[in-house]
Each structure stands twice: as structure tokens, then as C-alpha cells.
């Protein structure tokens, strides 16, 4: 007769897969909001976009007229790059007359980072703060452009949540 092997009871050998998971402890509502909100809770629109063929002067005129620091360069919902005040300072200012009729695509910043609308505000801030990008395009799950975050909108969100945390 085969010897019956006693298997250990589940609770003797069971290892909780969440045993090393430390849930976040929030000290206040502001912290909770920054982690648990997503970027859709922040103001992401309007989005100022220009076509890659838009001239430098036209793009700068749009920035000047609307008092904005950057425009996204896109064809439809497909993001190509970003053209900002910093690009004007570093690439355009000394030779404005020579390049003002050139397409903005020649001078836009190409290798920009994006975040998704389901990312948390804390994540977006981390990316902006650590990677040195002042503007962060926001994409939906289909990787289509749905908004943009910049310092002004971040400040607005922080102020709002700061005041609500009182």
C-alpha cells in the first residue's frame, strides 16, 4: 500500500505575493491627489499646434499672440515635435531675418518625452523635473495627442489642490 504523503497545509507554506508591498501612506490630501489623480484632472487643453510646414515667423506670431511658451508641431493627431521659446533663443534669435520663412520643422525639438492621460500628476512632474522638459505632451491610449502640460498648468493644479487640502 502506497504511503500517503501529507502535503503541507496552505497556510504553512503559503507566501503572500503582496507581503513585500508597502502601500503608500499619504500625509495629506495634496499627496494623495498627486499620486491618485491622473493627468486628466489637470488642464490639458487648449493645445496650440502648427503644421511642420508652418514658417518660423508664423509659429512665433502664434506664440506671441496667445502668450504661450511653446507650440506642438503635428500633422493631425500625430505629434512630430515641439517648438518653444527656448528654440527661439538658441536657434533663431541671431539669424531671425534669414530663417523666419523657413519651416518650423527645421528648428523644432524632436526627441521630446510624452506622458499618457492615465499617468499621475506626480509622474508627470517627475518627468518634467528630472528630464528637463518644461512641456509634456499628453497622449491617449491610442498614442494620439490629447493635450499638453506646461509649468503654468502644473502651478494651477498644485495651487488648486493645495488650497483644497486646507
Amino acid at each position, binding site marked *: 500500500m502506497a504511503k500517503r504523503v501529507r502535503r503541507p497545509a496552505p497556510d504553512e507554506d503559503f507566501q503572500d505575493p503582496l507581503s513585500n508591498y508597502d502601500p503608500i501612506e499619504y500625509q495629506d490630501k495634496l499627496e494623495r491627489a498627486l499620486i491618485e489623480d491622473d493627468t486628466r484632472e489637470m488642464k490639458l487643453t487648449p493645445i496650440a499646434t502648427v503644421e511642420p510646414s508652418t514658417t518660423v515667423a508664423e509659429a512665433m506670431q502664434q506664440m506671441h499672440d496667445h502668450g504661450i511658451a511653446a507650440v506642438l508641431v503635428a500633422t493631425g493627431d500625430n505629434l512630430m515635435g515641439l517648438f518653444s521659446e527656448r528654440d527661439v533663443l538658441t536657434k533663431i534669435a*541671431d539669424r531671425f531675418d534669414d530663417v523666419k520663412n523657413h519651416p518650423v520643422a527645421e528648428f523644432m525639438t524632436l526627441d521630446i518625452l510624452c506622458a499618457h492621460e492615465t499617468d499621475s500628476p506626480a*509622474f508627470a512632474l517627475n518627468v518634467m523635473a528630472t528630464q528637463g522638459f518644461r512641456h509634456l505632451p499628453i497622449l491617449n*491610449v491610442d498614442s494620439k495627442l490629447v493635450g499638453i502640460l506646461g509649468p503654468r498648468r502644473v502651478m494651477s493644479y498644485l495651487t488648486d489642490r493645495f488650497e483644497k487640502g486646507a
Partner: protein
Amino acid sequence: MGLRQDILNDSIEKLELRELIAVRPTTSVRAAIGLMRRKGLGCAVAVDDAGKPLGKFTERALISLLMEHKDALDRRVGDHLAEEWVSLKITDPISKLLECMQEKGLRFVVVVDDDGRAIGLTGQKGLMEYVAEHFPRAVLVQPMVSRVGMDEREGA
């Protein structure tokens, strides 16, 4: 203490101050933007003989100049300082910085010492860095960011 209390209690001294680009009001735009480019800053501060701030010359002002004047780069920065600017003491609370920036829509604030001398710049970036430091796990547990040019998300 939480982030909110830290913002109320901590002073501007806790923020990373940017090096100040101090120029005279008579400095040319060309010279000022040369300094701004080298230092990677979007703002130069015009100061008087005692080092006290008179106003800011910003990238935004540069764009306005280029759009409106043929001789933009030869003009004096002193004639094109930002209308709205604020200086705060390094001992002022961060909450005051947040309030000022939000109310006046400022990107930079000039930080002064007890004698009113300009010692650095701070603003939106400094504040974002301060807040981000409270959430180091936010980048550890989130997926990698998208980069422009991806046709579709990876994975399922």
C-alpha cells in the same frame, strides 16, 4: 508632515536656486541672449549699481522684440523688461512663491537677500523639482514614457 505642510513651513532656501544672469539696463539684447544661451536660462535680470533687481528680460520679451523691431538685438534690455516681476526673500515660505506665481502668472521669481540684493532665480522649475522629490517612487513604478514617433504602444 505632509507635502502641504512642508510647502507652508519650508522656505525658498529649500529650492534649488538658478544662477542669476545679472546685466545692466544698458546691456544690449544681443549680449544678454548670449549669456542666457551659455547658461541655459530663459531670463536675465537687470540690476542697478548696488546689485538690486530692476526687472527681468525673458525669452518671451525676445520673441516680442523679434516680431516688432528690425533692430531687436541692438536694443537695450532696460527698455524691454517684463512689466510684471516679483522678488522674494530667500527666507520667505514656499507657499508665498506658489501664490505669487499663480496670481501673477510668473515663470521666474528673483530671490534676494536681507539687503535686497539679487542672489538667484527660482520659479516653476524649482517648485516642480521640490514637489517631485516628495514622490521618488512615482517614476519607479510607472511605465516608461512614450517618445514621439512611436506608432503604437508596446505590449498587449
